[in-house]
């Protein structure tokens, strides 16, 4: 509102109260701004006005031109006008009558099943019926009936007879997510929401319709009959599944989370989230949940007490002296990441720490230190909406940051934002952005990016897989600096950005301080009250694993990693087997099961802290339920105490305060040297990324999303497929040096030639790391031998 100039304001009178609002505001929004609530169903501030439920009728005795409307008008569609006089039900009998009438009509075909409806108690229809309805219905005839409920996808159930046909869901599907799989079908009172289109319902977003449905027509299978709204206790927090940073409202009952809703955060996720963020919250409820420490004895893990386990861990780490590496994955809050960073340096005395449990490059290590750590991100969600163009390099927003995709769809739809896609494939998700596609093979992104004309209002979004395309990250930094454009690095996981800022990298300390600069080390050493900090750049994740596998590194401390994710899962497993491993995990993961000492830690929902999303925006993680085990930070503190050099971090708040006080490094840093391109290999090149619904353990326990809509595939250009003698639907064996996966082929025109996209980390199949290839490398592909 602050940047609205007075001349853009329109002054009108609502119920005798004068109000000034920006030109173009609808009456219903203007009324809200002065606390007058007009009942509504189809109206939603983030959806296009529709005016179909007619609940928000108001009387307009003067439209601003001295003349009034003879009949009540819908306040959700009518823009304000200077001098307009509006009377809502509060001051007009006519408006009140109209609203009462509409309410009565809405209820004639609505079943009286509120006592068994999930929405009962938080239902706009229920609430507004009490507000604007008559006590008793005059309707004594037959209600419209439908069989109930029908299933829309793995999660969504539709009770058609509860539907008031407001079309919020179908407008969400069309306008917000551009997943037009549901639409209103049939007519008259038999009009209903129906499934439209052929093929699988492939949407990451449709869970939102449960939340915006103003009645109980859409319900989620996982929450159906689970709770009454008034039995729930809500906590505002932040989603842990990716770096979008969505606000959440998490509802618990009897100490168990029952559902999660998108939080209202206009500057981040608006009022939406993705189905992973909404539905995937039961991963900590499996049999693999750890409640007590484990110690390896005679080759197998056995339960142990905390003192015993801490002593064993400390003994192993002491014995290793400084031959230790620390691997942290993406699940950590910034505070926990900071604890690991401090633990590695101040307690273990090593810079060998890396959060990247994925394929990466040395170029990326330098890039993160030079351009990301301790620096402001020049881009926000709002900037995406106002950019002159957005260039996507090596990122598939729908999979890698679903909220970025929604923002881009909004900007494309509302103001015709130009999107440029620099990639080897133009997916269904990218097509929602009507992007100009600059084709390149994996590895040629830097060259292709040079073709894009950038200006000062351009924004480049670069994804984590750009690390594997030599020269791309440095090209992003260089080209945008030359043009004055902005860019943002979009990491995949919620804790990634915080880990960079906390110094979970071998070459930077917290706040982007280079480990090689003594002034930077002195800063941190003083704050940490230690004599000195190691001054050599440590080993990165790949080097840590390689060294440990070779026996050159004696011990590892790991948190939130999975061997499947690394460039070579076999080396990762060998490292975990070879070294003395202390694993801090909430669950007995694959990494934990290979460890020597396993220390259980709290789930995200059991602790407080914060995440930094891709914008660098801090978003609060609040404790939702009480757990029985401490957070990573508390366990590390205990371990540090055991090792005789206390960590000095009482809790997450203390860690946040210490990190905040340290501030960011303003001294010089190593300049990012330009990296030359690498010629992609010959033959079929693998291109891929981590999909939203893959084998990631964050979705464990939520089978509903593992539907046939998201089956693993290989994708090839028709010409490439024909060249190899493959046809659509053929089962292909995609193999690397260490293994293979067998997946059906989808022949798709919008992928460059001689590239195969294959599911990277599909449930039930070996991951890329287990096959032993990373993107940009050649793979062998053949047809599956017919089974005899």
């Amino acid at each position, binding site marked *: 509102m602050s940047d609205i100039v007075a001349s853009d304001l329109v002054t009108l009178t609502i119920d005798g109260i004068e109000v000034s609002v920006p030109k173009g505001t609808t009456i219903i929004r203007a009324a809200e701004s002065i606390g007058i609530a007009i009942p509504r169903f189809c109206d939603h501030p983030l959806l296009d*006005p*529709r*005016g*179909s*439920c*007619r*609940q928000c*009728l108001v009387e307009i005795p003067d439209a601003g031109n001295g003349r009034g409307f*003879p*009949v*009540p008008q819908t306040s959700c*569609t009518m823009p304000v006008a200077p001098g307009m006089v509006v009377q809502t039900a509060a001051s007009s009998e006519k408006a009140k009558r*109209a609203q009462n*009438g*509409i309410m*009565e*009509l*809405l209820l*004639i*075909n609505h079943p009286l099943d509120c006592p068994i409806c999930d929405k009962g108690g938080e239902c706009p229809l229920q609430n507004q019926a009490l507000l604007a309805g008559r006590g008793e219905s*005059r*309707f004594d*005839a*037959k209600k*419209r009936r439908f069989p109930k409920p029908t299933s829309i996808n793995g999660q969504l159930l539709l009770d058609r007879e509860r539907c*008031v*046909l407001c079309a919020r869901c179908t407008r969400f599907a069309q306008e917000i997510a551009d997943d037009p799989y549901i639409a*209103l*079908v*049939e*007519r*008259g*009172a*038999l*009009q209903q929401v129906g499934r439209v289109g052929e093929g699988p319902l492939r949407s990451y977003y449709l869970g939102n319709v449960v939340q915006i449905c103003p009645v109980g027509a859409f319900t989620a299978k996982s929450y159906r009959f689970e709770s009454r709204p008034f039995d729930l206790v809500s906590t505002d927090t932040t989603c842990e599944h990716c770096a979008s940073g969505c606000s959440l409202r998490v509802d618990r009952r009897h100490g168990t989370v029952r559902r999660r809703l998108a939080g209202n955060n206009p500057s981040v996720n608006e009022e939406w989230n993705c189905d992973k963020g909404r539905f995937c919250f039961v991963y900590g409820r499996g049999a693999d949940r750890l409640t007590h420490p484990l110690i390896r004895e005679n080759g197998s893990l056995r339960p142990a007490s905390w003192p015993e386990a801490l002593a064993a861990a400390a003994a192993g780490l002491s014995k290793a002296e400084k031959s230790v590496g620390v691997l942290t994955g993406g699940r950590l809050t910034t505070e926990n990441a900071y604890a690991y960073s401090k633990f590695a340096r101040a307690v273990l005395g090593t810079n060998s720490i890396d959060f990247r449990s994925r394929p990466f490059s040395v170029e990326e290590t330098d890039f993160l230190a030079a351009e990301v750590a301790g620096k402001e991100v020049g881009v926000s969600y709002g900037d995406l909406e106002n950019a002159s163009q957005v260039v996507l390099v090596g990122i598939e927003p729908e999979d890698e940051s679903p909220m970025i995709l929604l923002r881009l769809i909004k900007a494309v739809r509302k103001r015709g934002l130009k999107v440029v896609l620099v990639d080897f494939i133009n997916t269904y998700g990218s097509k929602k952005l009507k992007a100009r596609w600059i084709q390149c093979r994996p590895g040629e992104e830097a060259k292709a990016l040079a073709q894009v004309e950038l200006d000062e209002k351009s924004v480049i979004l670069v994804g984590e897989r750009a690390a594997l395309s030599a020269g791309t990250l440095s090209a992003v930094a260089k080209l945008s600096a030359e043009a004055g454009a902005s860019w943002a690095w979009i990491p995949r996981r919620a804790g990634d950005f915080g880990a960079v800022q906390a110094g979970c990298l071998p070459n930077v300390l917290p706040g982007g301080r280079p480990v090689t600069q003594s002034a930077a080390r002195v800063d941190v050493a003083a704050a940490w009250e230690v004599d000195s900090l190691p001054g050599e750049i440590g080993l990165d994740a790949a080097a840590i694993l390689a060294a440990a596998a070779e026996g050159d590194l004696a011990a590892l401390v790991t948190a939130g990693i999975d061997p499947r994710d690394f460039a070579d899962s076999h080396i990762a497993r060998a490292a975990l087997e070879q070294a003395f491993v202390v694993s801090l995990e909430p669950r007995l993961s694959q990494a934990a099961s290979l460890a020597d000492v396993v220390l259980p830690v709290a789930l995200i929902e059991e602790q407080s802290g914060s995440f930094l999303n891709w914008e660098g925006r801090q978003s609060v993680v609040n404790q939702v339920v009480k757990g029985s085990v401490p957070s990573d930070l508390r366990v590390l503190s205990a371990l540090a105490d055991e090792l005789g050099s206390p960590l000095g971090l009482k809790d997450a708040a203390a860690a946040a305060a210490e990190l905040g006080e340290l501030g960011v490094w303003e001294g010089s840093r190593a300049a990012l040297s330009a990296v030359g391109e690498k010629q992609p290999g010959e033959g079929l090149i693998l291109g891929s990324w981590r999909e939203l619904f893959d084998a990631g353990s964050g979705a464990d326990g939520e089978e509903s999303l593992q539907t046939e809509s998201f089956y693993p595939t290989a994708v090839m250009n028709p010409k490439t497929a024909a060249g190899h003698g493959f046809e659509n639907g053929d089962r292909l064996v995609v193999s690397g040096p260490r293994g293979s996966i067998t997946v059906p082929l989808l022949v798709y025109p919008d992928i460059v030639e001689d590239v195969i996209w294959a599911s990277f980390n599909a449930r039930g199949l070996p991951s890329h790391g287990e096959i032993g290839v990373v993107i940009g490398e050649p793979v062998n592909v053949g047809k599956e031998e017919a089974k005899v």
Partner: protein
Amino acid sequence: MTDLLTPVLCENWGTEKSWKLSAYLLSGGFSAAKKALKLAPADVVGIVKDAGLRGRGGAGFPTGLKWSFVPQDNPNPKYLVVNADESEPGTCKDMPLLLASPHTLLEGIVISSYAINCHTAFVYVRGEVVHVARRLQAAVAELHEAGWLGKNIQGSGFDLDIVIHSGAGAYICGEETALLDSLEGRRGQPRLRPPFPAVAGLYASPTVINNVESISTVPSIIKNGAEWFAGMGTEKSNGFTFYSLSGHVKRPGQFEAPLGITFRQLLELSGGMRDSHELKFWTPGGSSTPILTPEHLDVPLDYEGMASVGSMLGTKAMQVFDETTSVVRTTLRWSEFYKHESCGKCTPCREGTWWLVQLLRRLEAGEGQEGDVDKLLAVTEDINGLSFCALAGGAVACVTSAVRHFRPEFELGYTTPAWESFPYERSAVFIKDRPDGQSEGGRV
């Protein structure tokens, strides 16, 4: 009597194969188009404005004025869409015209398109009348061959194509914005206005939507001049139009006469009520217009006359009912139509028609409960004026007007089935004699 008639549009209907271009040309066809193509487009609009032609689809909006709303500086193409989705119960004027003389409409389209700078015109034909759509398509093909459509029509430099599009059978698609949605390939449901079609209509481009009869009238205006047209009819309702009589009259059919003629005159033209029966009630313009009674026989049938007695001229479709007819039954049949045709978009129409039908059904069956008539009126009040488009207004007009004129008959529905008070076979128009000597008809 017959000098009351002004056969203009129907003048050539009796000629041999009147629907053929050759026949149409013989009866002076396309002379108006030739004349118009030599005028400036703005002048054509001016003539139609001066003539005072008002939309014949029911609303009576001045046609020339509508054309002048098209923003000519808009870079998008301009479209003319002819509404041939004639579906109103009782209305049967456009289909006979299109069957008998499709070229009258097509000539009108050529002139009107030229006037608004449109190069692609559409005729949206009601889905159920395949024969009409075929006749139109054949006529369009004839015009292409004759150089009256396509590039550079008759050497004038003006290009025009006409697309004949069949609907899928929905009354709501007669509503102009629902028609546009349907024409674009979506479900036909009315659109939010603004933007108005004149600014952003078909494919978000400036669009004029006119009724078949309005556009078909244009050639005669161009040919004979605005004064000729304005000389007919009444002060504010100029010209001539089709009146369609159906029901309990001796000779139902189309009567082309000046606006302002009375129903009494039309009834005489049609030979009067069937023998030994008398008029009970009638609709002036299809079932969406409030019904009238014998007391309104002498009210001028023009926009103002009908408004003065609380009704509307509508499509000038007189459904005529004699004293054998149950007004409850008639109202129920109409309400069932509206319930079936409600598109479902807005609450009052969707839910209200559902309720009205159930109330009327039990009144028809004599199972009404004390207070049902008041409830019926209360429901119409919750619908009337509160709906998204005009369909619901039509749906309640027949109910409220029928109760206004015949309330006791509705109240009879608390005790007596309508078929007992008004044996349905008595109002059957076509009586079939059965072998047993009895005759049957009526109640279906």
